């Protein structure tokens, strides 16, 4: 049984539907990468899973249960975690408080997780007392990742985690994602750094106009000349 499975999901923001039947399935061991043109509905898909918009058709099964339209405060304790594309840090709170908020639903001691996050992003450790709003674009991205990891999720959803990161950190983030995945966390992420991401993805989805256009392993998608030309920049 897949960790999460979307079957023909339809949904939108009230007007015309943005998602017109999205299908995907992710195992615990998978790193799924969604690529596609701007405005294709990639972020919307993640938001739909996380209950942030109304799903009007299809099912979203997580651990065998339909979670469509349930709210985040129910989903986070069940093991879902999400890093939005924009506005993904608490700007007026310190880095450390941002991380604490990630662990809000946890009742156990999260010191170890926090140490692990600092280890992964040493620069955050240096700036732990600084308001996140004063960080550079890339540093914020790290805070956002760190915050999401604090809840020890079983499925981590990331919306363009590498956007704005310097090449070195892109590599590191991608490595971290693989490491997190190796520890048994399923990953579903949206990426515009598509080639790099698909290179390690176990599953790749090409979305356009709210529908699956291609589905396959990362390598398959990169190899597909049609995909490469239309979606990966040749």
């Amino acid at each position, binding site marked *: 049984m897949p960790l999460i499975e979307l079957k023909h999901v339809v949904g939108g*923001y009230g007007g015309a539907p943005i998602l017109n039947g999205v299908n995907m399935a992710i195992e615990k061991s998978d790193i799924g990468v969604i690529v*596609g*043109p*701007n*405005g294709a509905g*990639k*972020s*919307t898909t993640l938001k739909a899973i996380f209950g942030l918009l109304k799903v009007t058709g299809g099912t979203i099964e997580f651990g065998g249960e339909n979670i469509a339209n349930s709210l985040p405060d129910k989903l986070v304790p069940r093991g879902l975690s999400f890093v939005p*594309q*924009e506005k993904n840090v608490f700007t007026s709170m310190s880095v450390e408080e941002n991380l604490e908020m990630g662990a809000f639903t946890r009742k156990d001691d999260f010191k170890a997780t926090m140490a692990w996050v600092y280890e992964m992003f040493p*620069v955050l450790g240096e700036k732990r007392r600084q308001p996140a709003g*004063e*960080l*550079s*674009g*890339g*540093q914020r991205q790290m805070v956002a990742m760190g915050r999401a990891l604090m809840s020890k999720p079983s499925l981590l959803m990331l*919306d*363009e985690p590498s*956007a*704005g*990161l*310097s*090449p*070195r*950190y*892109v*590599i*590191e983030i991608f490595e971290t994602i693989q490491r997190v995945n190796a520890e048994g966390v399923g990953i579903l992420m949206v990426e*515009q750094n*598509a*080639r790099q991401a698909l290179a390690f993805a176990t599953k790749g989805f090409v979305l356009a106009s709210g529908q699956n256009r291609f589905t396959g392993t990362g390598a398959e998608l990169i190899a597909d000349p049609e995909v490469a*030309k*239309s*979606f*990966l*920049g*040749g």
Partner: protein
Amino acid sequence: MSSDLVIDVRNVSKRFGGLTAVNNCSLSVRRGSITGLIGPNGAGKSTLFNMVGGNIVPDSGQVIFDGQDVTGFQPYQLFRIGMLRTFQIAHEFSQMTALENLMMVPGDQPGEHLLDTWLRPRLVRSRETDVRKKALDVIDFLKLGHVRDELAGNLSGGQKKLLELGRTMMVDAKIVLLDEVAAGVNKTLLNDLASNIERMNRELGYTFFVIEHDMDLIGRLCDPVIVMAQGEKIAEGPMAEIRANPAIVEAYFGTPVEAV
């Protein structure tokens, strides 16, 4: 004073509390060039842009634009003398449609003055028609035609970035500062954008000053490339030269990057 420098930043510094974001940094942008600015996250690139663009005032140092000392100028004054910028975190007008976001850009529209609106409606109307036509062209070029009547606040992250870039196409500027326009933009579309930037540079003589983390794009467009780290300029030169510098590769690229 060398008039082939559009921007000449002289010894500027900016501190935030205890942190020196930009430290006595000097650099310049040649007229007609596409100058790249790269550096690790937090190097101070955006802060430098903010000082050049008038959004923050440097603690010390000067910014010379086209031979004129513009330190402390307001952004709108810089716009009027031909400097245009985009923001790393998109600053769209969220309650206006995508099209309006572009239409508001051109300067000195007669319709923006009350007396003209009331007394010279014909003039206002004809200018408005031109502006709309131009905006429609730009929006189609950006492949945003289908969302032109959508509120900009409702656009996807990448679409906002495109809109941000679209603004620079609405007017003729001497220099355009681009702060990470590529982040979040689909690569296929990005190729078109890059071509367009090259064309604007070549055919219209625009100067570009580009912050970017996408090395492919930098490699393709920029010469020279300036490298910043910890608020200071640490290197400048063509991309090939930068890539040959092991210190930079270590600090910035993380692993040696094979030539594209």
